[in-house]
């Protein structure tokens, strides 16, 4: 049994200093790993990155993250990645973090992802260079996710993105903006591998639960959706009777 705590869209800045700290203090009692689904900052400044680092330092479990669109706004994504790496947080962009938890190997494959839309209503790399660049960015993100998933033979694979792989978990958002909230290219990548769970953020007004066309559980863990500092999912075989208590 692996207990995965997850949250996205925490959007920290100096005005939210100490915001998550009380809730994270006892995290290790409830979870084995913390996954962050992007938008860690308000708009990606170094100053905000320092707040994120202070909130996440020494939470007592491994932390794996992807960045979100807000974290790219000031073009400091590499700096943010390095700042987080300094406190042991793995920031994934087309790579995998492998962890051994209770004798099982967990692989988290992560990428920011991008928009584009969903089957039958998706942008195409056609026409103006801006449109080709938009769809091309989304396609490359999905290819990176595929590459990451292919590179691991862990017992349990989890896909971590900021943008949504399916439209299910966008329910509640205006349908007109779905193409800015995610892209099915990500789901196609996820469905090409044996993935136990796909986590994303970005859609603040969406819903928590969804499914890929291939039957992989998708969870939107954006903070406004889950309404708390994090939420916990249990994966893998229960090992003890006590574990069976996971409802």
């Amino acid at each position, binding site marked *: *049994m692996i*207990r995965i705590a997850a949250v996205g*869209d*925490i*959007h*920290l*800045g100096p*005005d*939210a200093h100490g*915001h*998550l700290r*009380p*809730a*994270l203090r*006892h995290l290790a009692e*409830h979870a084995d790993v913390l996954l962050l689904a992007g938008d860690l900052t*308000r*708009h990606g*400044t170094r100053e905000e990155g320092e707040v994120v680092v202070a909130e996440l330092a020494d939470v007592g479990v491994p932390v794996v993250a992807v960045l979100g669109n*807000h974290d790219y*706004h000031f073009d400091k994504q590499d700096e943010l990645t390095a700042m987080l790496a300094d406190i042991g947080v793995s920031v994934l962009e087309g790579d995998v973090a492998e962890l051994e938890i209770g004798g099982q190997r967990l692989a988290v494959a992560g990428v920011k992802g991008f928009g584009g839309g969903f089957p039958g209503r998706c942008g195409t790399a056609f026409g103006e260079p801006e449109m080709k660049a938009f769809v091309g960015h989304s396609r490359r993100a999905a290819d990176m996710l595929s590459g990451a998933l292919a590179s691991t033979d862990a017992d349990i694979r989890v896909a971590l993105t900021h943008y949504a792989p399916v439209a299910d978990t966008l329910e509640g*958002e205006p349908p007109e*903006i779905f193409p800015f909230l995610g892209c099915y290219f990500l789901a196609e990548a996820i469905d090409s591998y044996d993935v*136990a*769970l796909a986590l994303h953020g970005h859609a*603040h*007004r969406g819903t928590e639960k969804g499914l890929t066309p291939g039957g992989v*559980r998708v*969870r939107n863990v954006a*903070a*406004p959706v*889950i*309404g*708390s*500092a*994090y*939420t*916990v*999912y*249990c*994966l*893998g*075989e*229960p090992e003890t009777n006590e574990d069976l208590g*996971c*409802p």
Partner: protein
Amino acid sequence: MGEQPTVYTEARIQQRLAEDPRVAALGLRVTVTVRPSRVFLSGEVPSRERRERAAEMVREMMPGYEVYNEIEVTGSAAPDGSREDLS
């Protein structure tokens, strides 16, 4: 702001709330009424301070309008101990 249809004003405010670093919140909802002159704001932001800044920005943009700030602050307490079993 003259007789411009309110939908453009609402869209302009919404864009500013997303693009201005003081708030940088996407997807806040903005409703403008002309008679009486009011602006209603709703949605969620991660901190109380950002909620106040959003209203301040709108007051600056819309002098003479009453601003109703119905924006909520996202919960950041630890979950209640429930967890979902996906095994």
